[in-house]
């Protein structure tokens, strides 16, 4: 019996050691430790062993089982390690990843959203108005003289109906004040149209962002603080901002705003980014007349308005040399904004 056990053990260990994969190892386990395995059968023979030897044989059986089980376990670990390593063969992490289609927001959307997010943080709400406008909202109510050059058919698109394509988003100021009461604090992004031939710096359809704040005691310090803050948020906190006196029919005093920017490879220079001014009392008069009330009494409320070209801001921000890139939608261009 003892010899038999020793033989089983030797053979089992040899078979385990020779196993080339987990399946052969399992076969070896079943052949030795399975229901009809050699050691299992041998163990069943213990009942025929003389009583005084039973303990010693039992010990031998246990020792053999323990050793075989340990060999099985360590062989399994060794085989798995080999298999795990083999599973990595042929994987080349330096091959490129699977292509996944990516898109992008248009640069105009990006710059507009950036501007809107800043201004909303500053408490402005969005407003809009029609692009096919009438002369009243585009010019008359904005204190623009009847024979102002902008009203010319050579500069502005008209329709047979007498309506026109708004030449600026300032018409939204009027649309808003017609139905709101102070305080009015709005921004209006949108398209505007001018009868300009399309070239590297002009589009006949372009994008503006208008702003208007009307309340009691709105003053030049408000206009200055608001626009300085906005432009510094947009261009960097240390950006220099200057206000040059200018002229617009619907604001007085009026200013153009420059920021000092450094275009790569050039000396820093002043670049015009926006127009602004205090709402001309004549605009309030016209609103009140239309509303038939006194909601915008120029003796009680004052306000400022501003406007900027978003296409221009995008060109400045990203060094875009030709404005037509913004409407041609060349994927090679759009991809850069992904």
């Amino acid at each position, binding site marked *: 019996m003892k010899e038999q056990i020793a033989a089983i053990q030797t053979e089992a260990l040899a078979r385990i050691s020779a196993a080339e994969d987990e399946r052969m190892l399992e076969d070896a386990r079943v052949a030795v430790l399975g229901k009809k395995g050699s050691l299992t059968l041998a163990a069943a023979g213990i009942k025929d062993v003389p009583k005084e030897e039973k303990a010693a044989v039992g010990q031998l059986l246990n020792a053999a089982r323990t050793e075989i089980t340990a060999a099985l376990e360590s062989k399994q670990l060794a085989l798995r390690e080999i298999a795990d390593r083999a599973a990595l063969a042929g994987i080349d992490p330096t091959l490129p990843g699977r292509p996944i*289609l990516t898109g992008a927001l248009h640069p105009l959307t990006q710059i507009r959203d950036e501007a809107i997010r800043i201004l909303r943080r500053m408490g402005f709400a969005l407003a809009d108005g029609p692009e096919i406008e009438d002369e009243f909202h585009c010019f008359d109510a904005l204190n623009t003289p009847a024979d102002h050059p902008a009203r010319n058919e050579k500069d502005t698109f008209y329709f047979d109906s007498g309506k026109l394509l708004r030449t600026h988003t300032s018409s939204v100021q009027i649309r808003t004040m017609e139905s709101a009461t102070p305080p009015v604090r709005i921004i209006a992004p949108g398209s505007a149209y001018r009868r300009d031939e399309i070239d590297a710096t002009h589009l006949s359809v372009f994008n503006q962002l208008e702003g208007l704040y009307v309340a009691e005691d709105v003053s030049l310090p408000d206009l200055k603080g608001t626009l300085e803050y906005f432009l510094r948020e947009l261009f960097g906190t240390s950006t220099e901002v200057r206000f040059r006196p200018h002229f617009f029919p619907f604001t007085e005093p009026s200013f153009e705003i420059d920021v000092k920017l450094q275009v790569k490879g050039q000396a820093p220079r002043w670049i015009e980014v926006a127009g602004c001014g205090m709402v001309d009392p004549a605009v309030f008069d016209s609103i009140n007349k239309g509303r038939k009330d006194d909601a915008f009494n120029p003796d009680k409320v004052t306000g400022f308005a501003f406007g900027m070209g978003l296409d221009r801001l995008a060109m400045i921000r990203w060094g875009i040399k030709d404005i037509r890139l913004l409407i041609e939608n060349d994927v090679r261009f759009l991809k850069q904004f992904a």
Partner: protein
Amino acid sequence: MNVSLNWLGTHLDVAGKSIKEIDDLLTFAGVEVEGIETKGIASEKIVVAQIMEAVQHPNADKLKVTQVDAGEGSLRQIVCGAKNYKVGDKVPCALPGAALPGGFTIGEAKMRGVESKGMLCAASEIGLPEGEDGLLILPEDAVIGRPVKEMFDSDVLLELEVTPNRPDLLSHRGMARELAALLKTPLIPLETPEEKLASAEGKIRVEATDTCPFYSAIRIRGVEVKDSPAWLKQRLESIGLKPINNIVDVTNFVLHELGQPLHAFDAAKVSGAIVVRPAKDGEIFHALDDEKYELSGEDLLISDESGAALALGGVMGGLESGVSASTTEILLEAAYFTPQGIRRTSRKTALMSDSSYRFERGVDPAGVLKASALAVKLILETAGGEADAAVLAVGEIPVLTQPVVLDAKKLDQLMGGSIALAEAEEILTRLGLTKLADGQWSVPSFRADLQRHIDLVEEIARVHGLDNVPSRFAGAFVPASAVDAAYDADMVLRRRLAALGVFECQTIKLISDAQMQDALPLRPLQDGDVIRVKLPLSEDHVVMRPSIIPGLVASAVRNVRQQAKALRFFEMGRVFRNAGGGKAKDQESENLALLVSGNAQSAAWSQKERAADLYDLKGLISALLRNQAIQFFPRDRDGFVLSCDIKAGDQNIGVFGRIAPTRARELDLPAETHVAELDLAKLRKMISGVQHVEDLPQFPASTRDAAMELAATTANAEIEKVIAKHAEPLLISAECFDVFTDPSGEKLAADRKSVAYRFTYRDSGRTLKSDEVDAAHQKMLAALTKGLGVSFR
């Protein structure tokens, strides 16, 4: 407007001012400086030097080593390559530190091993007009050591943009007056002789007093028309004008000196009285630019008693009536024409002159006769002759200004208390206003733009400068608007599409007639629904887009030409149309358009190339709207094949189509180019996300697959319809996972197809037993057999 700094210097002492100071001063006065051009020699360090010796350079055949006397007590060694001089000549010598045009500065250097301490200069090298080859040889009497700039005229030309409210700045005198006020320095007084006025009875007749409230003319006899003297030519040339003859030059000079346009007629060409009259409708005017203009009763003509048109009043002289070499007697016109009249005529005839530019902005009415007097004086000086003792005048010189109140309280509010009243008043005084009683201010005649309190505030703010105003960071709280909500929804949609691999486009909202065939508006267009601009810039931009798709198609075409493989585009924005055949006008709404074409998957080591098809676009819409069931319902639309209405749930949200094959071929687009246009207003309501979270199922689901055979022409939607109608309560989903056809007819008749569905059953309250699932499934199959006659494989 061009301004010469030297000319400005005749009105104001600007000698101590740098160009930069003047630039800043004008900029912050509200005058945009668009260009600065320096003429002549700028640097003081270019001096007269005499060449005392010139020997061959030891190491260079073409160079000489010179010793020059630049008046420094010792000679200076300079290596020079020029050949046109001889020893003893005087030439310009740029000393170390001299800045030359082109932005480089002279230093000391070794040239081929020989020291060279400066540079001998050619004319073009120091900013003078190109001369002969080689060094600029100076006259023998040039003083050694003196700056060469003293021997040549130098000037600075300022290109200025004056805003339309400031016509008073459109002259050198006006600009000097403004600078004097800003600099707090006096203007050099301008002496003009007093003119005597005489009645023009029978000599001038004004029949258009509304557009010409004041007209004057003075006769000068015995003039000699010839070239202008050098000073006058130089003045005109300094601002880029070409001298013509002494008479015309004087009128041009006065215009740019004082801002008042004048006109000189050849008196021999005027028959009888001067008649200032409205043009006749259809009257043709032959202008001195040799063009003919058709006029109407709104235009103002200066004519004579014969009716012949001498000039288009305030705009341009006539071809025949002008001063020529044979002229001996002139009539000098000085008038006030109203801005409105001139603007109308100038715009209609597209004729713009220095004269019309000033009249249409508004000249100083009080300056009309001063300008005439100055011109007479200068004509007599340059052309001789004798002027009449008095000016013939008709009408009244208009008074356009009136006292304006400055409201101290309002000023303080608007300026945020940043300026004291006394300081504000001092600014107004400097600008030529005079304080009257009761806060009233009298306004000078040249500032007709100052009519209201706010106009005075503007002047104060402008001169005070926004730099001196504090910044306030505050504002009222206001509620968000519906536009805010729409914007936020649009940004969600945009970001989703970008993340789904779609590029956002921006196209021009005016499209061509040819592009209209690519339009796929939500509702088909009737005649009269298309909105066209009246005077398009070109045939490419004629129609307000009723659909965004034409723009996306054009973008796709452009990208195909650039070899782009994957075309996945979207654009959001306004579309424009009338409705009901034009009954409802100018409707603006907002759409989202999509275009998918070319590769859906590019070729790579890891995957095969795959062309995008209809289902890519449909899948894109499903991914965009997520929890919405997207369904397509075929409906014919012009210009497209496979066109469908798109439904999300039970709402119609847009239209879909594949560009018709002939059009795709014409545009060189991939054959399968699919587009969709969606109603953005509806989409915004579909992305609000989950309203109330559903509990997760507690019990397992069971699936059963079924492959049904049916006619190849039966749409999948028919199967979906039957499943929906059957409304099995245990069914939670039914997904089509295979469609099989066999055109060869071997495995399946060619006119049949096999569609495989996976049905999933679950009860929310308990685990279903297998036979319960089977029973529900059999009922489902029976319903499909009954509804569509399908057989199961």
